[in-house]
């Protein structure tokens, strides 16, 4: 049998989309833990935290250690995978064919001219990010901080108003499963993706 827990929290601080709500306030939208990357029953190497707003807005913010994606190309790939790697963002041009999804990620990641520097707000402070826009409604990108990487992908959110904040212990109570605690697959299975 597989040893539980399946999800073991990362050893680093996580980040989430900042909808300007008070910690623990569920009034503006729903938060969830759509995925994490890493070895089973080992501390997660990368954790994605999702947010779904009341008006079709969506955001996924993934935190990883700096050395997990050591170069700019890897980082562009990972940012693009937030959009095309699965279905954590509901989009009009969802690519269900895996070959097309990989091709889209490869094409976007390889085109440095599609990516540009811009600021995103992290904990209220402008921080330089690298980002790109996919069609009208989707933006993805990343921030390389001193000790970690923060990837983001948003749908129907003003690209100039992307805000991210540290996940505090208090904020973590907004999630049905607290990302700072271990969870079994059984518990993870109980949580359905929030609806917009």
């Amino acid at each position, binding site marked *: 049998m597989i040893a539980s827990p399946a999800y073991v929290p990362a050893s680093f601080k996580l980040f989430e989309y900042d909808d300007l709500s008070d910690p623990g306030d569920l009034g503006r939208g729903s938060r969830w833990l759509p995925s994490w990357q890493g*070895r*089973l029953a080992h501390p997660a190497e*990368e954790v994605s935290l999702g947010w779904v707003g009341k008006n079709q807005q969506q955001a996924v913010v993934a935190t990883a250690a700096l050395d*997990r994606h050591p170069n700019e190309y890897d980082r562009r790939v990972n940012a693009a*995978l937030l959009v095309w*790697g*699965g279905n954590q963002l509901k989009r009009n041009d969802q690519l*269900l064919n895996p070959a097309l999804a990989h091709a889209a*990620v490869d094409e976007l990641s390889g085109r440095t001219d599609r990516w540009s520097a811009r600021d995103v707000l992290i904990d209220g402070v402008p921080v330089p990010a690298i980002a790109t826009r996919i069609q009208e409604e989707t933006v993805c990108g990343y921030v390389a901080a001193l000790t970690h990487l923060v990837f983001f992908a948003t749908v129907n959110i003003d690209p100039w108003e992307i805000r991210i904040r540290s996940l505090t212990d208090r904020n973590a109570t907004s999630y049905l499963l607290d990302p700072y605690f271990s969870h079994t*697959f059984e518990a993870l299975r109980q949580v359905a993706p929030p609806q917009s």
Partner: protein
Amino acid sequence: MFSSLLSRRVATSVVGTLFALNGLTAQAAAASVVVAPRAPYGSCGSHFQLTRTSQSIRVVGTSLNVYSSGYMLVYPSDSHSKSYGAYNASPYGGANFVIDTGVSSKQFIYITLTNSSNTVTLCADSYYV
């Protein structure tokens, strides 16, 4: 085309080896004979893309929600009978991890995707990278 065919052929031929390499999967396979017949599984095909950088190979799985609406596990192994993982895979976020093979020459990497309890193999394939 040829490499694709070769890949499929090897994938077919290594299924038994995979069970031998992966104790958990082997146990699960044995247990499933008693508990329930295992559904036939196919090639993972283009759901997984592997890229090599020196001794490291990045494994990226996309659109894995076609296999399961729940979490899954990825079991990689290499041509030298070395196993890695299991790595988590999500129907929402796919899979993305790096294995260090210790060698920089190209070789077959075998991928097996199972359900989260490792009792059902969802797909298996080999990739020459």
